[in-house]
């Protein structure tokens, strides 16, 4: 599992672009809003508030890119590994035979970037694992492969 040769795959690089864009747009809007709000007091105050929002945005960029880079998954012979998290590191091992169903979803922004999220469900609510930001064709490949493996390795409750 933790053999060094485990072939980890990562979400599409477009996911990083999408998340960074989200944070960037929010930070810019916030900065502009604060500037307008404080402008009636003094230009200096407005500039400081806007700069603070931009700095927060920059920190957000770093956090979000670290978080996106932490996602990884590996298809092994009998199970799927999913790892994620910077502050709280998590790694799930989900045997193919335990997967009850797999769904692929994509929100409007994800669709615009050609991305999709694959979610695996087992009989245990706690194990609910997902891989976000897969390129659409990779997502359907993963889904089909998991469904096929799940079928052949299925085990009862």
């Amino acid at each position, binding site marked *: *599992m*933790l053999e060094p040769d485990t072939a980890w795959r990562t979400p599409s690089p477009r996911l990083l672009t999408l998340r960074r864009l989200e944070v960037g747009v929010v930070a810019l809007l916030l900065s502009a809003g604060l500037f307008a709000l404080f402008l009636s007091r003094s230009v200096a105050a407005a500039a400081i508030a806007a700069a603070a929002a931009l700095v927060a945005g920059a920190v957000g960029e770093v956090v979000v890119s670290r978080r996106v880079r932490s996602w990884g998954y590996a298809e092994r012979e*009998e*199970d799927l590994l999913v790892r994620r998290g910077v*502050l*709280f*590191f*998590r*790694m*799930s*091992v*989900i*045997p193919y*035979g*335990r997967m*009850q169903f797999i769904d692929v979803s994509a929100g409007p922004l994800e669709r615009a970037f050609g991305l999709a999220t694959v979610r695996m*469900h*087992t*009989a*245990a*609510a*706690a*194990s609910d*694992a997902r891989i976000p930001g897969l390129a659409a064709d990779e997502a359907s490949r993963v889904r089909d492969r998991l469904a096929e493996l799940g079928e052949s390795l299925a*085990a009862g*409750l």
Partner: protein
Amino acid sequence: MTDRDGWRRLHPVSPVVRAGRAAIAIFIVLIPIALRGGGNLSDSYIQIGVVGVLAALGFVNWLVTRWRIDGDDLRIETGLIRRQSLRFPLAQVQAIDIVQPGLARIFRVAELRLRMGGATGGTARLAYLPQQEVEPLRAQLLRLATNGEAEPHEPEEIEERVLTTVPTLQLVASIFVSDVGIVVELVFVALVLTAFLAPEAAAGIVGGGAAELIAVATLVWRRFNQEYKLTVAAAPDGLRLRSGLVALNAETIRPGRVQAVRLVEPFIWRRLGWCRLEVDLAGRQKRKGEGEASRGQLRALLPVGSRALALELLDHLVPDAPSPDRRAPRRVAWKSPLRYRFLAWGRTDTAVVTMTGRVRRVTVWVPLEKAQSLRLVEGPLQRRLRLVTVHVDTAGRALHAALRDRDRDEGREALSELVGLAQTARRAPP
């Protein structure tokens, strides 16, 4: 009560028993009316009307409900306007219960409850059936569930071996020293003291907190009633549990259906050498925002008893159960000073055990063939101390095993070890 296609009806007194407490309340309303005679009956028209409508609805509900065994499914049809046809595949049955509330005992009827597995995990309820039909039907359903084929009238008498019965005195004593019991006693003592010092204040408290007092009393009573004379017996079709003082309860746990077993030793009980053993079966799980309600769904196999007895019962549920002998590293005391004393885990080739708890000690066993997924989690504080937690998830309602705060290398090794063992356990023929 069987028609041409094998559809059957429930017992005709079902609506009365179902209404249960409501029916008793209605009688209490009706009796004074009857005693007063026809004099001012007009005041009570509304009440009588409501009672009449409710009774009619109950009767209609009975009239449109029918059930039958169809191959290896149990089918129930119900509903007048919104017709519902329910199909319960018997192969997914986790446990079959026979429940008999006080009123049902008077009418000699009983309810059959089939608990189903799967994430949706519904319960099939046949309420109520004639008392003498329930036991054969239960045996038949269990046979269908295990064999998957119909052998309608097999006159075999299944022998069973009684493993343990809870002594009533011990049960009462255990409730007195349980957490709820101690709170009740403290409140009671406080009340008596205030009654001596300031009678008016005490009266006010009793008046104001009446609802809470009744709620607590019901809670204690329910627990006592449900665990009164709880008998565990081993039979070829599973472990049989029977209990109850007023309401009777009989339950069969099929072999190999146990998702997890929990041994709880509260602080005072531990001093007395007592513990409680509970099992978790597959079923509907707590979703986000549903609160702690599902905790109560654990079934007590041994409401109170010695540790030795609990371990003996455990052997029937999880064969070759490990004992928690791998203590947590010393530095965990910095992170969880209260828990540190108890943290431990252990494993055999087929099962894993974990022990934790702050004041009360909780030990959880999970058979590895039931593991749904495994997770390794490392929080920020744990990273500082080079610790990880490994979770073994089950399809149970409330329990899973967590190897809390292990050394990072040990945790990673345990994870890959457990993954491999779970794989082998899943493949092994049951």
